[in-house]
């Protein structure tokens, strides 16, 4: 039996997906190959720990977004990896572990960590998983590009609001006057500019983006 066929058989054995003849065959293989036995035990152990963390059937809170991110990562991986010459069967088995239920669960565990759903905030209010559970706004990823600035994201059960606290921002000078508007919705213009108006109709300014996407406000 080729190594890839053995691997597939082991995976199906871990999932309890073998017929009696295959069961007999795998037991013989495991008895004679300690390395294969170790691999099978390791897979079984991972399967059990994932099963204890996740219910048998539960979709991630935002399956479409989650699946699109997984799919994007797969495509990127396929594009950047230089694959050695493989037969179609072997190529299929290279990703077959991912398609198996416990493989998806393993990815879900990584995705949960990536999305920060399991992390409660430092002040003890609800985790973002609470937000998802009650159908509230959810923040899945946050990035602060400026050095020294960090973001703490959490869901406040009591306020029923999702919060991002930014730390490390420079204090605005007291000398500046912060002018606020009651701005109305604008439509984008053909030239890429946006004419922002007050709710009363008065033109506030024209918003243009430079070549780097940085906005410039042109006063009337």
């Amino acid at each position, binding site marked *: 039996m080729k190594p890839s066929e053995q691997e597939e058989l082991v995976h199906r054995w871990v999932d309890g997906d073998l017929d009696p003849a295959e069961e007999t065959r795998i037991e013989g293989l495991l008895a004679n190959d300690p390395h294969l036995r170790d691999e099978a035990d390791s897979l079984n152990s991972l399967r059990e720990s994932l099963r204890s963390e996740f219910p048998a059937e539960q979709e991630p809170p935002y399956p479409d977004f989650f699946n699109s991110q997984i799919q994007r990562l797969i495509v990127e991986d396929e594009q950047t990896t230089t694959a050695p010459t493989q037969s179609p069967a072997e190529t299929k088995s290279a990703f077959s572990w991912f398609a198996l239920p416990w493989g998806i669960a393993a990815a879900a565990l990584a995705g949960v960590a990536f999305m920060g759903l399991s992390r409660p905030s430092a002040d003890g209010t609800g985790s973002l998983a609470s937000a998802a559970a009650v159908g509230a706004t959810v923040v899945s*990823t946050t990035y602060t590009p400026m050095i020294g600035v960090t973001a703490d994201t959490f869901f406040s059960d009591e306020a029923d*609001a999702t919060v*991002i606290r*930014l730390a490390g921002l420079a*204090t605005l000078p007291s000398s500046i006057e912060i002018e606020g508007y*009651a701005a109305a919705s604008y439509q*984008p213009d053909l030239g890429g500019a946006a004419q*922002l108006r007050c709710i009363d109709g008065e033109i506030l300014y024209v918003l243009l983006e430079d070549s780097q996407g940085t906005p410039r*406000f042109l006063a009337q």
Partner: protein
Amino acid sequence: MVARSLILPLLFLLLGSAKAQEPVVETDAEIWGGLLYAVGPDTDAADQDSEPRGIDVTALADLQKRLAIVFGDDKTYHLVGEHTQGLFKQYESWLVPSKELFLKLDSKGPADGGGVNLNLQLWQEKKVIMKTDATLRPGSPLFIEGPKWRDGNLVFVVLLPKNG
């Protein structure tokens, strides 16, 4: 010199005439953005107070109550500026209650179960200080605590109204 002085008026003229002809761009939702100034009650910040125009007074009061729960009830939350903006399907949208702190929004489409998926970039003048992917649910606000200013600090509120 004469030519330069004509540029802006010409720009507005062109924008005005173009606006009359261009089709309405489709949106996935309408988003309300408010910039609030959180400051202690002893500080006179009346000049930073605006009457809400994009949401009703009751809704603003509810937001202010929630802000107090999160950021402290020893402060008053003054509405500095607001902007109600359609979230374009194809293009990025700007949510600008003030030029000092504003958002760039990029719709990722409707969310299952209601609401909208989007990417938000928080800008402070010419710098991006935060980027985030989020799913806004109707009636469920997102509070972003911003920089300190004078005796308090700025808070940006993003809300997908329940009827939006």
